[in-house]
């Protein structure tokens, strides 16, 4: 008979063992594990599970990840418990840490069919690390009837936009909504592009080390100072609610809101890129595309690459379904984009044209999170607190320069 003490010791040890042994994140030994972030549109999860099931060679286990996906993924990749296949934006830091597998051979057969500017967003040192899945873009939505009532025409320069926002602010309606942080996160990039500047140059130098940058960021301050920005809305810029509820005449949001805006406002809205500031600048729309990637620490790199090739290069019908059947995305493949019915008319057709003419990468691989924090902090202090733009930007320039030096020598 077992004494009580023995039993206690044994169960205690068992509990400890099972605590260590269970759920290390590894799935079945022969299958592949694939991660997605939680897409907002209904049906996407079922769709990606359906694709995975249809893959005959190895079982694929799809994990849906609500919450802070980027941090979760980064931690998982670091600790070696990450998935074999996942979606992410390409970051030079992940490449340098040896976390990603180059996928040039995977895309080879269809490379020319992918939009070049989108591929560039997944390229580091000449190698491709992500197969673009779906293109998202941001643009300016405006309410035609409100602009007409105020006698304002759709703005084609930043100064016209600032002026329009001011004139459209009246009677409980604000001119523009660009996020609860006064547009710091989403408009800082377009502000640089409007003046012909950028985050980082192709030669890996700081792209906004120029007196004009202070002027460009100063325009965001003018918007905030004139009281024409909506702040503290319940839903942030990525949801169309402030616009569809009539709280604002213009909103900066994404292509993905077009169905909801159409449903609420019918034809009473138009879209624009962020306008240019001066002759050196151009109108711009930020684009980003999650790419399908393979974990370099995976035990099944070859199988994972083959699965990525099958799903994101070979199976064009799944790519079309993924881009068109749920939310509103632009397929990264030209052949699919040109044959997509939903993108032929109205705001969506305009968006496709903006992407062709004015696309800028919202999250380039060499723009690391340390650089982004330094830059956005500086912009936030200028826009929200009225700090001096040139001295704030000088501080950001020196931090970004240090980071670039560390990464590229």
């Amino acid at each position, binding site marked *: 008979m077992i004494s009580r*003490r023995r039993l*206690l*010791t044994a169960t*205690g040890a068992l*509990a*400890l063992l099972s605590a260590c042994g269970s759920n290390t994140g590894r799935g079945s030994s022969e299958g592949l594990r694939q991660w997605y972030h939680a897409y907002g549109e209904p049906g996407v999860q079922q769709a990606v599970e359906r694709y995975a099931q249809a893959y005959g060679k190895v079982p694929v286990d799809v994990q849906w990840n609500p919450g*802070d996906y*980027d*941090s979760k*993924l*980064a*931690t998982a990749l*670091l*600790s070696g418990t990450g998935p074999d296949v996942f979606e992410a934006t390409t*970051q030079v*830091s*992940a490449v*340098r*840490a040896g*976390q990603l597998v180059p996928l040039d051979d995977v895309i080879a057969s269809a490379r020319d069919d992918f939009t070049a500017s989108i591929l560039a967003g997944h390229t580091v040192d000449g190698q491709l690390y992500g197969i673009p899945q779906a293109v998202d873009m941001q643009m300016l939505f405006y309410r035609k009837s409100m602009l007409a009532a105020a006698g304002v025409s759709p703005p084609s320069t930043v100064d016209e936009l600032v002026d329009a926002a001011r004139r459209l602010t009246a009677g*409980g309606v604000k001119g523009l909504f660009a996020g*609860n*942080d*006064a547009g*710091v*996160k989403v408009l800082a990039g377009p502000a640089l592009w409007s003046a012909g500047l950028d985050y980082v140059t192709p030669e890996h130098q700081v792209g906004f080390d120029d007196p004009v940058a202070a002027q460009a960021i100063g325009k965001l301050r003018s918007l905030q100072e004139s009281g024409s920005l*909506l*702040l*503290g*809305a*319940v839903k942030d810029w990525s949801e169309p609610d*402030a616009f569809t509820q009539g*709280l604002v005449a213009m909103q900066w949001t994404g292509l993905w809101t077009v169905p909801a805006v159409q449903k609420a406002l019918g034809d009473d809205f138009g879209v624009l890129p962020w306008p240019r500031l001066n002759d050196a600048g151009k109108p711009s729309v930020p684009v980003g595309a999650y790419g399908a990637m393979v974990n370099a620490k995976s035990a099944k790199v070859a199988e994972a690459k083959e699965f990525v090739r099958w799903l994101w290069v070979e199976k064009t019908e799944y790519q079309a379904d993924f881009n068109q059947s749920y939310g509103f995305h632009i397929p990264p493949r030209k052949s699919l984009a040109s044959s997509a019915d939903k993108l032929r008319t109205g705001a969506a057709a305009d968006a496709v044209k903006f992407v062709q003419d004015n696309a800028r990468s919202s999250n380039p691989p060499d723009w*690391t*999170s*340390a650089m*982004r*924090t330094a830059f*956005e*902090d500086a912009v*936030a*202090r200028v826009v*929200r*607190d009225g700090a001096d733009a040139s001295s704030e930007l000088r*501080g950001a320039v020196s931090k970004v320069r240090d980071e670039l030096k560390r990464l590229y020598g």
Partner: protein
Amino acid sequence: MTRTFWLFVGPFFLGLLVFVYVPIGWSVLLSFFDARNTVTPTTFMGFDNYADMLTDGPFLESLGTFSVFAAFVVPLTFVLALALALLVNGIRFMQAFFRSVFFLPFACSYVVASLVWKLSLFNGVRYGLANTVLGWFGADPIAWTVTPPWYWLVLVTLRLWLQLGFYMILFIAGLQRIPHHLYEAAWIDGARPWQALRHITLPQLRTTSVAVLLLLLIAAYQAFDEFYNVLGSGPFGRPPLVYLYYTSLGSGGQDFGHGSAGAVILSLLIAGVTLVQGRVFTR
């Protein structure tokens, strides 16, 4: 004896070792290395990470902001919790009811409370609760969670609502340990209520007060949830822990060397202030 000791203490000690002491030790180790995107670094940096953090504008700013924050919120919570405890302890009926009512918010998660404060009470549109009240007086809506200095009102009321009940309970426990005969003696000598408070209640609450002050101070420096959820990632009102989170974990940036160095500096600061405070108040 020793077998029983290890049987009961062992599992907890093991848990503490694996989940607390090893990570702390590892973090101290990482703080001396260039640990970007790795937790097994090879490039030894000496004290470079510490030097970087101690000259890093945003980190120093967050430490400064939170020293000021602590200087305001600690005394405020202390006084209000003590006042509440004296009131609740003084009533003759339904005391258990009031104790529970004031304690209940403590059971609410910081994240949930942050969302209620941000999205409902203090949202910036004209139909938010606070702005509706302002509207009655003809004032314009305020973007509470965005505009300095208004977000401090949001954060401090939130923290008070969540914390007060807990510290009130600590004070009530302290109050109930004061022997009643002290008060009786005072009343016989003709002491007024405020004299009893000044000369009996407060001195007798000394140990409780020191504990409450320490807990409040540590809680103020460790502030994370409500700042992260109400304010997001901007440079305003950013506590040290939120900044360190963005340095070492947030949105794919994994700089564990600098993050750990910052964490060690913060720990030393909290430990230092706590020691000084303990010295001053227990003397």
